[in-house]
């Protein structure tokens, strides 16, 4: 009787432990499936025209997405220019100056902003940057992405600044430096590797965002000079081409997907390796 119960328990033990292993394996294999599909379908669709030409008219074969590649870079630069300084300084505040209650509230709000659905951030950017000027623009798209960059940058900056030992601050202050001088010339440079990595991760995260761009940056068949016109971007192109009816669009969607995914994953792998080597908990 008790023997039977022991067998049951042992059996259950073996079964459940195996199942947990299978689950982990299944999830990891999804990553390889994603990579496999994109490399296979995207790889055979990539050609020089893809990188150098403008999209052809609807239904025509050939052409490329050069404008969307440049557009994505432009939107990301805008997001970086607007979002990174705000994120950096707010992070410095939280790590170096922050009081108790206000810091807690700010940190908490930052996390909530980080978790806000990207489509809602698009609506926000629409109301502050599209409605007043009455047209879609690269600026509105950059703003939407910047709002997403800020919370990620804040948290990573804060974390890396906190990882700097206090002895460094004390040393600088003992030499007569004021607090801001200590921060600007000792603490931030010491944490700069981590801070920059965190910023790159933030940009990598928003590089693939589509939803906030749908009604801010919209899309564009052509080049988009300046900041006040609608602009094409890789994620939006993937969305439009994948949901469209033409085979050649599907082909280019896979190719664009491969380009986007490689950039995002390479940035992630690079950044995370740097972070792990520094022994700081990743964000």
């Amino acid at each position: 009787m008790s023997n039977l119960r022991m067998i049951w328990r042992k059996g259950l033990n073996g079964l459940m432990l195996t199942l947990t292993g299978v689950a982990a394996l299944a999830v990891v294999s999804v990553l390889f499936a994603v990579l496999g599909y994109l490399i296979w379908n995207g790889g055979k669709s990539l050609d020089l025209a893809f990188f150098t030409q403008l999209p052809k008219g609807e239904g025509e074969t050939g052409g490329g997405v050069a404008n969307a590649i440049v557009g994505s870079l432009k939107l990301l630069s805008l997001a970086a220019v607007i979002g990174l300084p705000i994120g950096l300084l707010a992070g410095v505040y939280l790590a170096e100056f922050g009081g108790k209650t206000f810091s807690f509230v700010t940190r908490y709000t930052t996390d909530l902003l980080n978790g806000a659905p990207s489509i809602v951030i698009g609506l926000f950017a629409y109301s502050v940057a599209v409605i007043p000027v009455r047209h879609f623009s690269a600026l509105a798209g950059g703003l939407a992405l910047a709002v997403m960059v800020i919370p990620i940058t804040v948290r990573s900056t804060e974390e890396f600044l906190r990882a700097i030992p206090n002895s460094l601050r004390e040393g600088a202050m003992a030499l007569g430096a004021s607090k801001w001088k200590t921060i600007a010339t000792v603490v931030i440079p010491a944490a700069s590797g981590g801070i920059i990595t965190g910023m790159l991760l933030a940009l990598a995260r928003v590089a693939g965002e589509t939803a906030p761009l749908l009604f801010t940056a919209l899309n564009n068949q052509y080049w988009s000079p300046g900041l006040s016109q609608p602009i094409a971007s890789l994620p939006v192109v993937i969305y439009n081409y994948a949901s469209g009816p033409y085979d050649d669009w599907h082909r280019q969607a896979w190719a664009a997907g491969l380009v986007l995914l490689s950039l995002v994953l390479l940035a992630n792998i690079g950044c995370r390796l740097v972070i792990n080597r520094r022994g700081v908990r990743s964000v």
Partner: protein
Amino acid sequence: MATATTTIERAAPPESGPRALLYRLRHGDEVAHLVTLIFAALILLITSMMIYELWVASHATRTAFGFNFFWTSEWDPVFEHFGAAPFIYGTLVTSILSLAIALPLGLAAAIFLAELAPRKFSDTIAFLIDLLAAVPSVIYGLLGIFVVVPLMRSTIGPALKSSLGFLPIFKGPNYGLGFLTASIVLAIMIVPYIISVSREVLLTVPRDQREAALGLGATRWEATWKVVVPWARTGIMGSVFLALARALGETMAVTMVIGNTPRISSSLFSSGYTIAAAIANEFAEATGDMHRSALMELGLVLFLITFILNGMARLLIIATDRGGGRPS
């Protein structure tokens, strides 16, 4: 020379008055404090502005329909009648179903990584799973359209129909697009969040808890399931809320595979619509102010729900960080 003056001044800083302010300004600490404070406050400002903008922009439909907006199901931009029930239904069905798929899978994987796998191997796998979380959602949508939808049409759908077809949730025609497909894609997208948060939480469970259970004669599984997991349950709940918030707000992948028809159907094969998908599809082409206001109201609802869920998730995770979710 400059340092000398500073030292003298520091020895006797003016107590008050404009000279004192000048002194402090010169040192810049107050300025730096103030400037960074302003940027920190900017985050609060942006967040409250978001709620305010959505609130104001949804004024027209809020006054016209009131709460009827949430439980009527007629969505007609031409006659300007807006009831959001199908979108809310679709959002709830897809997020709950995706959670039902992702939670067992994610928890099991997290248990494996935290309890069984050697640390180095576990870290490598966790690294790969973090990469899975970094894949842009439009890429999942792309794979959804060209891989999951055909698979659903040819394999998964028919299999479910032949084995469980008597259930009302598996009745009706199967075109590949619909609630079930969207939920599967969503589950793949949220599983990394469940795994990475749960794994971290499980790793914080003190070693002696495991040893005590094993010492009492429990098997490895019993020690894990009856001692370690209950200890970590608060944090695991946190990961679930986090994942749920993700699922509710996820836009692109769902838009690409759910079929985009505002319909309330008990069949999971039926095509549907979600709040986020409706905004993504209709907003840029919204014609009237009413239509735009209705979509803004949907955005507001979505934001508030995810706000609350994320808030609860953070509190739960903070609670576990501070000394564990000891079951009392």
